[in-house]
């Protein structure tokens, strides 16, 4: 498969680009909700509109009422989300949670997928425990209780957790905290007794929960996949989420870079456009190169994931790490090249820096993924 978008994908990209530029624009969404101190951090009306566009069910199989498309298509939407810093539940609900539900039985799929496709439901995922992503270790416990389970533990960085109708929780049904086996995934409804959110605002104005599970009682049918066999489902969620976050990061990087290059063509100092200075030209050109490479490996990872290729997980980590580096460079160079104005809240470039920081941390940062690349490569 060639490493560029085919005609259908190009059409989708044009549609998504136009839609996000109009409806998902920074002033209309990110700043609007931020300045109102919205408790969700995003707009439900936009989520409905995204459903009308067909975006919400992009990864949901056609048999379940979705579009049955792949990670390349989800990535196309995510890149435009990133470019416009559009706050929405897309990455967590339509990519990570949808991947989990794809592994669930008919009952759970029937209960949750229609709401996702319609843009009426929002889902969150509770994986991290502690401030750094380390999914190899899961301490949250799910003990057998009657016909079901009783969950206890604490989860962090549950993005949009307090807004979610359902949270996919990774818990341990057997073994020690660091065991690969013994993990089980649960679909936890928002009104479950014992579920407590400490919802905090993050640097990028998104909301995230410190989630406490205090003896949350669930029926056996809340289990996604097999009891004790959740690691495989979790890995699928992680691959999908990492590749998705990479795609959004590419959008953030390209948005910041375009904005910065435009600025170099407008701002005058010393009687010249600052874009005439070679010191800045070379840095901008280097940035372009890094962002292009990051985009290429992201598309590669999407294609491998869609093909179920054996090295898809490795390349998902390569993409997440490479985008982390490239987007990090884009926003840092962006603020620096904007000079003083780049430090003001009024100007958008700083918002790119904030979003990049949060996205970089989501499902593992550069260091985590570079380390994972080393491990998977045998050292």
């Amino acid at each position, binding site marked *: 498969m060639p490493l560029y978008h085919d005609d259908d994908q190009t059409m989708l990209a044009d549609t998504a680009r136009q839609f996000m530029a109009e409806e998902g624009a920074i002033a209309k969404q990110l700043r609007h909700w931020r300045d109102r101190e919205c408790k969700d951090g995003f707009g439900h009306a936009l989520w409905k509109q995204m459903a009308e566009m067909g975006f919400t069910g992009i990864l949901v199989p056609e048999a379940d009422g979705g579009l049955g498309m792949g990670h390349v298509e989800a990535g196309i939407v995510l890149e435009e989300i990133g470019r416009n810093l559009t706050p929405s539940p897309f990455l967590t609900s339509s990519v990570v949670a949808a991947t989990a539900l794809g592994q669930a039985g008919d009952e759970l799929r029937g209960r949750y997928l229609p709401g996702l496709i319609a843009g009426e439901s929002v889902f969150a995922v509770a994986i991290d425990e502690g401030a750094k992503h380390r999914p190899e270790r899961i301490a949250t416990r799910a003990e057998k209780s009657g016909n079901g389970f009783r969950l206890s533990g604490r989860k962090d960085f549950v993005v949009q957790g307090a807004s979610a109708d359902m949270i996919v929780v990774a818990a341990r049904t057997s073994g020690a905290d660091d065991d690969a086996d013994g993990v089980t995934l649960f679909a936890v409804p928002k009104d479950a007794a014992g579920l407590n959110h400490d919802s905090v605002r993050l640097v990028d104005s998104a909301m995230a929960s410190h989630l406490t599970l205090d003896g949350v009682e669930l029926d056996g049918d809340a289990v996604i996949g097999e009891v004790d066999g959740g690691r495989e489902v979790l890995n699928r969620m992680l691959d999908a989420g990492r590749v998705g976050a990479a795609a959004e990061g590419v959008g953030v990087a390209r948005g910041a870079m375009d904005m910065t290059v435009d600025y170099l*063509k407008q701002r005058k100092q010393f009687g010249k456009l600052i874009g005439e200075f070679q010191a800045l030209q070379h840095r901008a050109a280097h940035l*372009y190169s890094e962002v*292009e490479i990051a985009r*290429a490996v992201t598309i590669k990872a999407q294609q491998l994931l869609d093909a179920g290729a054996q090295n898809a997980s490795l390349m998902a980590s390569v993409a997440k790490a490479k985008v982390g580096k490239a987007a990090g460079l884009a926003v840092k160079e962006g603020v620096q090249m904007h000079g003083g104005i780049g430090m003001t809240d009024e100007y958008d470039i700083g918002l790119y820096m904030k979003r990049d920081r949060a996205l970089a941390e989501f499902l593992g940062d550069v260091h985590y993924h570079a380390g994972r690349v080393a491990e998977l490569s045998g*050292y």
Partner: protein
Amino acid sequence: MSDLDTFRAETRAWLEANCPPEMREPVQGEDDVYWGGRKATFKSEAQKAWFEACRDKGYTVPAWPREYGGAGLSPAEAKVLREEMARINARPPLSSFGIWMLGPALLKFGTEEQKRKYLNEIARGEIRWCQGYSEPGSGSDLVSLQTFGEDKGDHWVVNGQKIWTSYADKADWIFCLVRTDKTNKYQGITFMLFDMESPGVSTKPILLISGNSPFCETFFDDVKVPKDQYVGEINRGWDVAKYLLGHEREMISGADNSERGAGIGAMLKRQAGELDPVLRAELAMFDVDALAFSAMGEKFLDEIKVGKAHPAQPNMMKYAGTELNKRRHELLMAAGGSAALEWDSEESRGGAAARSWLRTKANSIEGGTSEVMLNVIAKRILELPGA
């Protein structure tokens, strides 16, 4: 089964039958690479058999048309062949500047007669070409070149000096940029072809920091070049040169070279057991960049085939690919420790690590420096002012 699947199966069977096991081992030294030409000799029977099998099949230049010595493969078929050769680590049967550089220029700008003659000679490994571009006073600013061809009716008389002519001492013919109009900088250069055995041509190898001499100084002292030995139009050789530079940059970038990927860390772990944690971290960061760049190479080649790549994208590939390769060799030296310092011992295969490390420093200079590449990206892709 699709046509491409059938082709893959046939190719796999053909390679199995024709590529000797020795030709599936990594290239160790310079003489493992077969360059062809009048003076060429084969290092081994296996090298000879592999070259001849490929030559007869058109696989020295698989994508060139059959009438010019190629196999006439479609881009998709050529990709399959590349993948299948990579799968068994098959060495390239023939390497040459004729294949990488002059060939593409002739395919685009050559006359039918030129294509039939020169392309077949290149494909069959009969003539080894070298490139006469840079001059002592014209490096990054190549268009300022001074080597002059005086018009003498049915021939030119060429005088001047070229530098960094790779393997000029081993080449049979040269493709060469010669000024034919001193009043017009860009439209006063002709892309000439001539025999290195012509009277008045002399070469002198340059000893490099690697201790090797792959490059030469080449002198032209009243060299007679027949008036029909040029490509494109007289005085419009810069168009050909620019087109070719794109190919050269693409080639140096290693866009189609999967070998530049990861692997140092795993090798070191096997050899030494434990890795220094800081070195491991650096290797991991390098592998992220290397694996990402291999995807970029694939994307770039896919896009080139269908005209989707930005025309200046080879400059980006050259910049990123060469900087990456330099970093790779820095890490290989760090991984090798004092063993990698050995200069001529048998164990070090004649100082292969150190010499390769030093050689790679030229990657970001030859064919346009990294700084020139960044200038071109700034100007032609980002469209920054005054660049």
